[in-house]
């Protein structure tokens, strides 16, 4: 897969194979945390490390709804971009254009997915730094996903710096 600036307003992802198509489609799903308490706890962490229960409760009541909306908005940008992707016409590889103004939302949605997956599968710092295991189990796939999304995040961050 190749990522390059097509023009001032567009970043192009090209040479996307079917595996990468699937991984892109999984960004939004992976970032949804309602059914996964560990992931939910990571995305909505305590602002006091639990030292101030009253403050934490106010945070849950008044701040978390805003955060939830913000997170959902980012995911919706990604979801809209992938609505008709990949196209129905079969091909060896596919391309996807992303407006530069949407890159912040993509970076955020990718971060949600990475953090949620890491919390769900309880990846250690050691595992995050190690090579991805060859075993084809769900945990290995999730670790691959986290690294793939990290690669996309890094590329998009560089596009915003240029």
């Amino acid at each position, binding site marked *: 897969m190749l990522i390059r600036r097509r023009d001032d307003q567009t970043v192009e992802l090209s040479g996307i194979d079917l595996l990468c198509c699937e991984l892109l489609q999984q960004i939004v799903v992976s970032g949804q945390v309602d059914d996964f308490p560990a992931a939910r706890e990571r995305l909505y962490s305590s*602002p006091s*490390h639990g*030292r101030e229960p009253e403050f934490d409760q106010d945070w849950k009541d008044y701040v978390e709804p805003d*955060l939830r909306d913000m997170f959902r908005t980012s995911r919706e940008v990604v979801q809209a971009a992938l609505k008709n992707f990949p196209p129905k016409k079969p091909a060896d590889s596919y391309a996807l254009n992303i407006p530069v103004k949407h890159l912040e939302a993509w970076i955020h949605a990718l971060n949600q997915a990475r953090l949620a997956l890491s919390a769900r599968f309880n*990846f250690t710092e050691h595992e995050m730094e190690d090579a991805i295991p060859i075993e084809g189990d769900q945990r290995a796939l999730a670790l691959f996903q986290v690294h793939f999304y990290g690669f996309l995040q890094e590329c998009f961050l560089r596009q915003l710096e240029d």
Partner: protein
Amino acid sequence: MPEIIVEQETKTKDATDTPWNVVVHNDPVNLMSYVTRVFRKVFGYSKERAERHMLEVHHKGRSIVWNGQRERAEAYVQQLHGYLLLATVEKSE
């Protein structure tokens, strides 16, 4: 008598202006470049200062990224949570 008045004023000021720290904690998932970018966006720090805080988080597990009044500290923590960083507000020692 004048000395007593001065002392009372000092105590009152301390009680209302207790400084608070905004602390960012390490997590192995957020990218270093991402964390640096967030510090620059939220606090307007230079690249060098943002990187210094990011490296402190990475190597020491936490960094005090801002210090001041409670209300502003909470607002900064909210922004940092919006960027999915592990951030807390703590009383300055």
